[in-house]
């Protein structure tokens, strides 16, 4: 293991603790953009502390599937974090760095929550989970297409370190396919992290909830784990975006510097999107994600027409 890999590994682990800060930053910026003072960026930590101290209550009908789900979500999210390289580097954690592994880990968390809602049979939770899983069909499809495009640019490898290396430098941006993939990724990222216009992470209107609905029954430490996982999911997607779709020069040091600037910038972009866009009608979401997928197919067509670079 090189020194660079060790440093990247340390940063990956730091992400376990820093992730809620990004979610908090989005909250703070949203408040400011909307003319509110808003919560500070540390608010998610206060929430986690509050939930951690609370007792856990479960629905009467809750079985082992319900009780295990938060642990599965936390574990799969933590593992997913270790798959995504930082600055194009990552130590070998024994998981590999395959993009498909990442998609699978993210899906595993969602699947666990979906099963848990079936376990209790709570109306709201089932409603939220059924929406979440319906969206997932489109999110995962579009995300795979994005990965296929980025992988083709990397010579067909879906290893994220290889893909990140291929995405560095200026050459890759001469490919129309890469632009298509970048835009499609932005659309998918909003859906994957449950952000407006797809889902509203701050909503209190029960009937409109998607992710919040699915995890509605959880309380205390279980809820803390799920909130941490939601924040970390945002962090992972931001990191993935930086690794594959933020223009940068080659070299570990440069890439780390770019990451440090890009993360707050992307948080600001998310906050701006959530401020200027209303939540879309629920049946429009597949169309929205389908648009992302169509863009990927266009990108694929340009690659086929011109041949891989």
């Amino acid at each position, binding site marked *: 293991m090189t020194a660079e890999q060790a440093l990247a590994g340390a940063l990956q682990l730091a992400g376990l603790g820093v992730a809620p800060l990004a979610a908090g930053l989005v909250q703070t910026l*949203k408040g400011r*953009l*909307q*003319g*509110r003072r808003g919560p500070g960026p540390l608010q998610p930590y206060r929430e986690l502390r509050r939930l951690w101290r609370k007792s856990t209550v479960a629905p009467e009908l809750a079985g082992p599937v319900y009780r295990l789900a938060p642990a599965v979500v936390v574990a799969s999210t933590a593992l997913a974090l270790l798959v995504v390289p930082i600055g194009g580097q990552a130590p070998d954690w024994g998981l590999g760095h395959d993009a498909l592994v990442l998609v699978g880990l993210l899906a595993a968390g969602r699947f666990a929550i979906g099963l848990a809602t079936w376990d209790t049979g709570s*109306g*709201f939770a089932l*409603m939220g989970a059924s*929406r979440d899983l319906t969206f997932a069909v489109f999110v995962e499809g579009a995300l795979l297409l994005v990965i296929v495009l980025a992988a083709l640019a990397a010579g067909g490898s879906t290893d994220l370190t290889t893909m990140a290396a291929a995405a560095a430098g200026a050459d890759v941006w001469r490919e129309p396919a890469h632009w298509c993939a970048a835009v499609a990724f932005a659309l998918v990222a909003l859906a994957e992290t449950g952000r*407006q*216009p797809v889902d*509203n992470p*701050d*909503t*209190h*209107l*029960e*009937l*409109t909830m998607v992710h919040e609905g699915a995890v509605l029954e959880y309380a205390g430490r279980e809820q803390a784990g799920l909130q941490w996982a939601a924040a970390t999911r945002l962090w992972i997607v931001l990191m993935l975006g930086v690794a594959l779709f933020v223009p940068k020069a080659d070299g570990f040091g440069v890439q780390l510097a770019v990451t440090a600037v890009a993360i707050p910038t992307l948080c600001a972009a998310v906050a701006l999107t*959530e*401020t*200027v*866009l*209303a*939540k*879309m*009608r*629920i*049946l429009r979401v597949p169309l929205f994600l389908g648009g992302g997928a169509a863009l990927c197919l266009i990108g694929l067509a340009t690659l086929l027409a011109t041949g891989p670079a």
Partner: protein
Amino acid sequence: MIHRPVAADGWRAAVGEALAEGWRFAGLHATREDATPALLTVLTRGSDALVLRCRAPERRVASLVDLVPAAAWDEREAHDLHGWSLPGHDPLRPLVDHDVPADAWTAPLVGRDAYRVAVGPIHAGVIESGHFRFAVVGERVLHIDVRLFHKHRGLEAAAEGHRHTEAIRYAQRACAADAVTNAVAYAQACEAATGLVAVPAVARARTLLLELERLYNHVNDISAICAGVGFAAGTMLFTALKERAQRLNAALTGHRFLFDAVQVGGSRLELDAQAVGAARAELDALRAEVARGRRELAFAGSLQERMVGIGRVSAGEVVMLGGVGPSARAAGVAIDARTASPQLAYDGFAPAAPTVPTGDVAARFELRGIELGATFELLDRLLDAPLAPAACVGGAAGDGLGVAVVESPRGQSLCVVELDGDRVGRLHLRTGSYANWPLVALAGRDALLPDFPLVNKSFELCYACVDR
């Protein structure tokens, strides 16, 4: 006002005849602890009122619900609270009585993949108590059963026995957001019962208060519609404007919700030239801000896209269910009690209409914006001179029964007062929210489940109005 006793066997015929003569149903209620219990139906035609009183010792009279579907809730309430039986109203589902199994008050649901989603009465935000049962297939709503009446306060009963000049506080507290409307309706009903007539200065003060109430409510409702689709920029902009309007209320009357600004038999509101001038300047500034905000929202595509075609009610449905206020006007039913309020300063007032009366969320949203324009015009005119306290003067002798209809931001509010000397014998209040709730349930049909909060907010009705 015409007050006409009707025999129990001639009840339906009398109401049917009145409807044929062009009278519009305004409300139905039962008397309370009376030796011979009676049902009263109030109908209006222009600024005139017709009260039909049917005495029935057995508390049993034929239902009007097929003649006047709008009387459905009134009849169910008379059954639950006062023990009336109303043959012909079938099924007579419990409305106020909650101590019944769900089957008793919900429509039966059969079919593959159809299921129910129950929401409330406790919600995840600062929302009043309301329980909604949605019959859905997937995300599509088939039918909504609404159960309100969770916090009955007995306000109407509590008002009884108090001096009528003091009991105004019971009418006022029925609903904070329509406090002025209900207080003015109560005051006018008492004045009608005692034979008083408002002089122009009293009319001007009350109209000013009514329009200040409409201003902060309509601004709030626009903000609420934005909140219904998670459009935070619009929510925050109009919430801030509502705050400014409420601060103006406080500056003018000492109360952000304009409480205690209306009195029976006169007006104590006093505004000197300086106060009036400052209020006009602030209103001018608010008007410019509201116009700017409306333009911003008109160009917010993601917001506009959510509103069109959602929560549609037709003009026919509005007339059938007795819908009133902006929701009725947005569907093309041009009713507005302000056109028939000789005791208020609304001379030459014409009801607002949307560009196309589609009766959907977009039309209700647009209508509020249009009405705000008219409200600013009125306020500017009403504040052109200082305001001094004034008293009503004697007119025709009253017979102890008074009826008044006043337009609130949610539609007309009916107040019926029966005096016992100078004490209140019976107070009945039927607000615009009460009249419109059945319409909300209808408007939510065929919508997608996650669109219902938006539909509900486009009406922005009051839950407390039913818990009198």
